[in-house]
């Protein structure tokens, strides 16, 4: 396993725990991460593994928009895993990624309901954006998705294997997204989390998300 061409060994006897720091002061809500994810993973119609929520705060003339990029948190204690009756949802022991084995998924949707972050999705059919007939892009990219099985962000695990960052991180024009190993005390993400005020989304639920919002 490597990131940016650098092999990542275990630190303090721990396997990597991939995580992401999201700098809310830098995020401008451009949705480029949303599109980069869509293009990289070829997710089915109307499914966005990553998206940026927005909300207006204050009143004129002090009104402003705040943005919140959301995606799978790859929690250390993922509530989606124990509810799965088949073992299709699992936490990979070698890098703590929370993944889905589509061949085992029966489509019971228990994991979708159990996820407090609403970042698990199930394509109901094989239609594309223009109906039954798929575009050449869709025909190729949708091959890897089984309809009526659950899918979600994988932190672009296929890119991690080749030493690249997740597509959303590479694309972000403001460097609001920082990806790395939370178990490595020298990684940029760990240093950022140490140095900056931050919160983990809905940490009170005991999920211990691997996402840190820097404030």
């Amino acid at each position, binding site marked *: 396993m490597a990131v940016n061409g650098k092999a990542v060994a275990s630190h303090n006897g721990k396997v990597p725990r991939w995580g992401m720091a999201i700098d809310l002061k830098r995020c401008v809500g451009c949705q480029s991460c949303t599109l980069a994810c869509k293009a990289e993973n070829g997710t089915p119609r109307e499914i966005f593994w990553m998206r940026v929520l927005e909300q207006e705060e204050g009143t004129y003339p002090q009104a402003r928009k705040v943005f919140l990029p959301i995606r799978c948190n790859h929690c250390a204690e993922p509530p989606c895993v124990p509810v799965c009756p088949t073992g299709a949802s699992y936490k990979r022991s070698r890098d703590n990624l929370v993944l889905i084995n589509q061949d085992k998924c029966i*489509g019971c949707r228990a994991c979708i*309901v159990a996820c407090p972050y609403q970042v698990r999705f199930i394509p109901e059919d094989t239609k594309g954006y223009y109906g039954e007939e798929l575009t050449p892009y869709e025909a190729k990219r949708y091959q890897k998705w089984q309809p009526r099985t659950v899918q979600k962000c994988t932190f672009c695990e296929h890119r991690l294997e080749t030493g690249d960052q997740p597509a959303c991180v590479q694309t972000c024009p403001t460097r609001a997204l920082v990806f790395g190993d939370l178990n490595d005390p020298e990684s940029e993400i760990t240093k950022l989390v140490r140095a900056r005020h931050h919160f983990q989304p809905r940490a009170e639920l005991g999920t211990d998300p691997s996402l840190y919002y820097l404030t």
Partner: protein
Amino acid sequence: MAHEFNTELVAQEEWGWLLALDLFFGGMGGGLFLLSLSFNLPASVAVVSVLFVALGAVVLMIELGHPLRAWRALCKPFSSWISRGVFCVTLFVVFGILYSAPGFDALSWLAPDSDSVRRTIGVIAAVSALLVMLYPGFVLAASPSIPFWNSSFLPLIFAFHSLMVASGFLFLIASWGLDSAKLAGISFLGVILIVANLVMGAMYLGNAKGSGLAGKEAVRRLNAGSLGRTFQLGVVLLGMIAPLLIIVWVPSVVALAGLFILIGGLLFRYCVLKAGVYVPFPLT
């Protein structure tokens, strides 16, 4: 595009009528079996209870994205309540049929020879019937994402509702030969169950209202709009208060009370599912 990604409180939309039907049939079947044991009802009632649970399982399979993979749901009984539930349903169907077998010529070859074996089979079937009534509550309570469900009280409510619905079914078929002494006992139990469900339901809603934004929103939805009408008129008025009045004051039309309880029981499960509001995003 960004305007579609809002931060409003939303309810889950994954589970609806089909799961409500599954929970309804499963709960009614489990409750019916326990009532048939408690009141020593004819073996046909126990068989019907098994059929209801099996019907619930069929409905659940229809709801799955991949019904042919349903056997995989037996893979994680040590962590998943759905998996445990599937085990309980399977156990109940097998042991429920074995227990009822002596009452039917067609099934007599399945009947155990000794009384002690039949008693053991009956105990296993009864325990699995109890778990069939309880497990949906545990399935829902296992979701920290939905505070309205995330309560250890929910399995108990599901169990009591299942018993109430089972008593409703017996009221409905009472005119087909149910002993009047037994009917009186079931009516008495039915009244207790209705009152208990009203009290527990009120306590549950009161508790949920104080459990944060999502819980409060869930209770609001059960008191407003179309879901509110379904809950107030269908679940509370038609499903509990009307049957209570009929059983107490007009017992001659107890079958009508039974029908109302069944309708209310199904709507209750639907309302609980549709009131499942997610915890808000950290922005709100």
